[in-house]
């Protein structure tokens, strides 16, 4: 699994820590929502970035008060057909004002990247061997969009009526 962030393939030094595992020191870690809610104070006190993984049935409202203390939120896509994360991403970006990284993890494939990015996802755990060319291709398959999202892209309607 490779990590693409802001349009580049980057090293992934994040560690997923299970609910009962000891938290490793000095590395950025992901914990589940359950663990975050149970140990927020400890986690917030760490000297490395902290991330929360939301399963596809965990809406981000649960961490709405902590968003400025979390650097990355990982949204799980257990199968690419489970589209709940798209709504979660938009809520995080557009309603709750989350400014950290939103990372799509799980079954995250070529044909979903563009829609995910429009919803506010800016990092993708992609299949090993994915090239940045493929990623860029996926991102530019459509030059126009009908709907406005938080990504600031001008919509077809706006283009039609610009004076």
């Amino acid at each position, binding site marked *: 699994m490779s990590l693409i962030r802001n349009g580049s393939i980057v090293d992934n030094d994040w560690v997923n820590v299970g609910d009962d595992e000891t938290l490793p020191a000095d590395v950025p870690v992901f914990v589940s929502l359950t663990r975050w809610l149970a140990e927020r104070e400890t986690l917030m006190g760490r000297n490395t970035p902290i991330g929360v993984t939301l399963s*596809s049935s965990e809406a981000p409202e649960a961490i709405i008060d902590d968003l400025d203390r979390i650097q990355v939120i990982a949204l799980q896509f257990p199968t690419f057909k489970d*589209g709940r994360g798209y709504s979660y991403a938009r809520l995080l970006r557009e309603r709750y004002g989350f400014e950290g990284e939103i990372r799509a993890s799980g079954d995250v494939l070529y044909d979903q990247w563009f*829609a995910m990015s429009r919803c506010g996802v800016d990092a993708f755990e992609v299949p090993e061997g994915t090239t940045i060319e493929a990623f860029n291709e996926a991102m530019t398959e*459509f030059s*126009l*969009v*009908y709907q406005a999202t938080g990504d600031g892209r001008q919509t077809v*309607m706006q283009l039609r009526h610009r004076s």
Partner: protein
Amino acid sequence: MYRYDEFDHTLVRERVAQFSGQVKRRLAGEMTEDQFKPLRLMNGLYLQLHAYMLRVAVPYGTLSGKQMHMLAHIARKYDKGYGHFTTRQNIQYNWPKLDEVPAILEDLASVEMHAIQTSGNCIRNVTSDQYAGAAAGEIDDPRIWSEIIRQWSTFHPEFTYLPRKFKFAVAGMREDRAAIRFHDIGIELVKGVDGKVAFDIYAGGGQGRTPMIAPLIGTAVPADDLIAYVESILRVYNMNGRRDNLYKARIKILVHAIGAEEMKRQVEEEFSHAKNDPNLTLPAAEIARIRTYFEAPAFETLPDISDAFEKEKTENKRFADWVHTNVATHKMPGYAIANISLKPIGGVAGDASADQMDVVADLTNEFSFDEVRVTHEQNLTLPHVRKQDLFTLWQKLDATSLGDANLALITDHIVCPGLDYCALANARSIPISQEIAERFEDLDRQHNIGELKIKISGCINACGHHHAGHIGILGVDKKGTEFYQVSLGGSADETPSVGEIVGPAFTEDKIADAIETIVETYLGVRIGGERFLDTYRRIGKEPFKEKLYVTN
């Protein structure tokens, strides 16, 4: 009707390129079928019993003559010379080849058509009233709002992977020819408190395994808030619809589970944010722009009575019969709405040959301001025909077996493709329709019976809308033999009702007899001008049950 601008054209072209890329990757083994399937479904491509099936979108059922000619061309060039018009106003081709679908899509794009989102767990074709812009009493042309919803829902990045498919229908007035109460979202245009266009928004209707009539969720929602409101419903659904069980994943299940009140509360909660989102406000300029495409055509000023038309009716009984059932009142004097039956006795309900499509295309151009509509009951409608032209029109239709005078009569069926085509079916449906139609072929008898809508499905998915049939027939498989279960009293109009099963299922050789028994029972007790549905609503199912299951 709506015409693409450069932006619409670009998006459709890019979609064709995208799908071509996806097909290439699939054929090169870069994608498994499991990964490819949702993508091909979102371009309308199914795998059915005998072959692939391509479902082409006909937005709110509206076509120009040129587009109908292209549909004929596709049938000839890529398929086996015919197409099937569906209960969602689309057209299906039953024999396309996967590697030719990109070329089909390119041909479609050249006439502003596509197969986008006609399948898959996304927002599907928005359907509407086939009499839009022609019938009197419309609050506003529902297709304006259908087009707005269409663009908003096309490639919507948040709603591409919903729990299940999502279907919209829009009616422009209280009289409902679009079956809005049986849709995931059904919209009725109403007058708001300020006298302007507003929407009563129903959510959670559907047929399938668990038929439900959509409850009212939003009352008189102002036009400006339409997109914010439907986006709110979709978000609530996307986040809360079931993902664990495909058969319980529609919004109707969610609404039923939490109740209409709670659904409304959640939607209003979401809407309280959405309505202030400038991203979701429809600019007046855009509404005005779309409205211009649906302005009335250049109607002539005509007397309401056409002497020629009156004369032709007296001189030709077959024509008069056709007028009696198939011609509806137009809001403009001297004009009429002409319905084309795709249910000839002995034919396949809803099918049209390439030749027939070409004839209809020419007639559309010549007699109906270049506009034809597909109806959800699998017929076609020419919305704006001068009364003085009806006879010539009918003669040309009749010459190509499109002149059957049976609209809404007992031989005008909605029929799903059934086990003859569909991989999901348990029983054949088309032959049952043919048998019944042949049994009731006599037109005088049909007229005597009056309006009686039979709807036939080959499996529990109810694509034949059997739950909403005055008489509904559901094909089932009992230990390898096809049986047919009958329900009575369903209705898809503004008085919606789900049909009630009348008793044990019938075999294929008994089903037509059963229909005869039902009809005879009705004729024996009807009062005044009662239609079958009216009689049923008055007397209930017992009298029919008694006659059907007489124990000797």
